[in-house]
């Protein structure tokens, strides 16, 4: 049976909503997991307060979670399984959309959001094979749910591509930008946790005598280890972003007759690149490592989201894909 594009696209929409529901369930499971960790943390003695934050130094090896490896986080596992399931439906939805359109499924905002969040989930799930970062699960599934859910607001029917979009550079430039965003999202999540963790560590040192309060933060790696992890994701994201910038310039040179013209979207891509270059520098600057550099990573990602949402919708520019008129 040959499915016509319209039917395929409506299947795709059904799959998207199934995926969103599964992500919501995953988010709940992960949230329960965090609550359980928080409870469990009462039992775990806070060893770190004996150390003091003063001894922190460049030691990327110190990234072992303190107790996170313990297998009792059942809800975390349920969350991950649900995320996998959601991912499968999400992947199906994206593939169907691409098949229905007869081109890559990232040519308008609805599709960028669909593919971008798919890559976020993929990167998160892939990273789990390498390191147990399930404590990021509620953040990642939450972010994906919000982005994918609100992207349905921008749902558009499949329309033929505008001429300027008929280019291999659409395939490369937009895909790599989404991939960069996925890595930067993980770095962002880790930087936020790093800030929380650093604050808790500071308070633990100051109030060494006070009874330990419950906190899921006690079950995740130290602020320093989180910083090291965030940095690693950020530099991968940064490399992809650099590539996005260059590929975009090549495409602009073909489509618009110049490789750089300070179009709004170009400006924001540049701003984000410079912010992350600043973040990488901050990590190597005395007095900026730690909390300050984490803020830069956060500002950088806020700019990424701003670029994708506000700039796309409200700023004038060539990236409106108006093409020839």
């Amino acid at each position, binding site marked *: 049976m040959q499915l016509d594009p319209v039917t395929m696209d409506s299947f795709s929409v059904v799959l998207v909503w199934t995926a969103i529901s599964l992500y919501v369930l995953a988010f709940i499971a992960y949230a329960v997991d965090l609550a359980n960790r928080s409870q469990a943390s009462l039992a775990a003695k806070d060893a770190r307060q004996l150390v003091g934050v003063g001894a922190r130094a460049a030691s990327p090896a110190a990234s072992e979670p303190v107790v996170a490896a313990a297998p009792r986080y059942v809800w975390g596992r349920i969350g991950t399984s649900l995320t996998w399931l959601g991912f499968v439906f999400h992947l199906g939805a994206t593939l169907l959309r691409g098949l229905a359109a007869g081109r890559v499924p990232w040519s308008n905002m609805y599709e960028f959001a669909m593919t971008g969040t798919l890559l976020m989930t993929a990167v998160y799930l892939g990273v789990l094979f390498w390191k147990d970062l399930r404590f990021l699960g509620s953040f990642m599934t939450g972010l994906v749910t919000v982005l994918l859910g609100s992207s349905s607001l921008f749902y558009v029917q499949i329309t033929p591509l505008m001429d300027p979009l008929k280019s291999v550079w659409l395939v490369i430039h937009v895909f790599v930008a989404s991939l960069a965003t996925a890595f930067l999202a993980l770095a962002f999540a880790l930087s936020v946790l790093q800030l929380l963790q650093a604050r808790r560590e500071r308070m633990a040192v100051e109030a060494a005598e006070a009874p330990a309060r419950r906190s899921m933060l006690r079950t995740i790696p130290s602020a320093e280890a989180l910083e090291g992890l965030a940095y*690693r994701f950020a530099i991968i994201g*940064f490399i992809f972003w650099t590539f996005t910038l260059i590929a975009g310039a090549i495409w602009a040179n073909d489509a618009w*007759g110049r490789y750089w*013209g300070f179009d709004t979207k170009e*400006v924001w891509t540049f701003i984000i690149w410079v912010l992350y270059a*600043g973040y990488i520098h901050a990590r190597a600057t005395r007095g900026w490592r730690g909390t300050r550099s984490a803020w830069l990573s956060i500002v950088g990602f806020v700019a990424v989201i701003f670029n994708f949402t506000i700039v796309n919708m409200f700023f004038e520019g060539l990236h409106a894909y108006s093409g020839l008129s």
Partner: protein
Amino acid sequence: MTAEKGAATARKDTVTDQRTAPQRDGSEPLRPSDHVDADEAIAQPALGFVGWLRWGWRQLTSMRTALVLLLLLAIAAVPGSIFPQRMANPNGVTQWERDNPDLFPVLDALQLFDVYQSAWFSAIYILLFVSLIGCILPRTKHHAKALRTKPPRTPARLARLDDFREDRIAAEDPEAEAAHAVDLAAAQLKAQGYRVERYDGRGAFSVSAERGYLRETGNLVFHASLVGVLLTVGIGGGFAYTGQRVVVEGTTFVNSLLDYSSMNRGRFVSEAALTPYSMRLDSFDVTYQEYGGPGSGQAGDFSANVTVTHPDGSTSEDAVRVNHPLQLEGDAIYLLGNGYAPTITVRNPEGEVVYRDSVPFLPQDTAMTSTGVVKVPDGLSEQLGLVGFFYPTQVPLDTGAFASAYGDLLNPMLTLNVYAGDLGIDDGTPRSVYALDVTGLEQLTGGDTGVDSIELAPGDTADLPNGMGTITFEDETPEGTDPALGYTESVKRFVSLQIHHDPSALGVLVFAVLATLGLLVALFVPRRRMWVKATPDGDGVRLEYAALARGEDPALADAVEQLRAKHRAALDD
């Protein structure tokens, strides 16, 4: 566990300080004094003028300054995305001025409409690049020397290092076995790309190995390439030119300054720099999405089919398409826009042709409602100016006005209002061909005149008011066209082309790619030191393996363990 970790980290700090002070060991990359890996800056009292200069220079080339300038650059770039920029969107600036007449002069004085050429934006990036050059020159010099430096002496107490493994093997001749073990380790490390140096003595044998010099090389290549990008853009811009030209089907465009409607030249581009080729627009293809379907009326698959005459007289056929500029004699030719150019003939009362031209009408919307101006300076009792609309698929609106419903020529219609008087083109004042200044002209049709506007379908002729003559909208359908096609070939099309010459583009690309490669190397090649030490010890040999990371190196502990495992396996063979 964390307590141990913390203690170990603290210990490592002391080791680092002893081992890596730059004055002890030339293989360290040189870093600005406020780099996390650098020695604590020694606060030197500034001595006189030279002292202050030196202090100032050190500040400018510090990590902190680079960081602050980078952040400032990011912030300074933001207003350019909020306010329309003259460079990218001059019409937007005019519009903004009209909407905010009071605020405009203030913001304009702050250069907010020319952000990227503004004094403050330039100041930031120039300072940043001065800092950058001041930073990489000494580091490059230092690195060149470091590349020729031997790996440092093996530390006395390897056990103090963070990543340390210890083994003991039994041996009949401990002395010989220890020497053999270190030989073997040196060979293995060398095979893994380490630079190795033997340090034997004081009753022990050891090899010191270092790898990852490429990391610093990559960092320097990256930063130097950024300078390369900036210089290429700055210098290359002087050799660039961009011109625009409207070409109607069947006409020819000659690449000379005279033939451009507008042209921006870099300061090093001479009049003679343009290659004398010419290009005839044979036809223009476009397809429209079917009426009522998805993306209804959307135009696409644009192709301007041209015949090029090269400077040597040879000709070739080619096409200019979106995303596929035509590369010609070092120029790139882009398709910027397209529209209709109705062919109009004006005759005097005797029936003699006084005017005949295909006049480009500029499209105003996606359904190609277009406006244009016809100026008839000679041959009639008065000069005539005609202002008109062209609708490729004309439909009446409820108000009685016309609109175009579709971009293709399904029901073409030309409407014109006639003005008579002095067009003001004889006194040499440059006038736009797309606008008619009606001051001083008498309106003869349309508006309040009580005379209907002229309405023409292709092939129609109408009388001009006051018996001045006739006007014809020519049907340009080629002979032998299938009548079923209706009007679809009846009006000529025009394209607007951009001819762009920018010798900097390739250079920028090369430097950008170099920067990316440098970045990959700088971020992912680990810089590390390894030591293997064998000490004869009674009836056996004590083997020590240790490593020290230089910068981020998450895989270091694994690397030590792998080295140990491989070494032991080879020893046991």
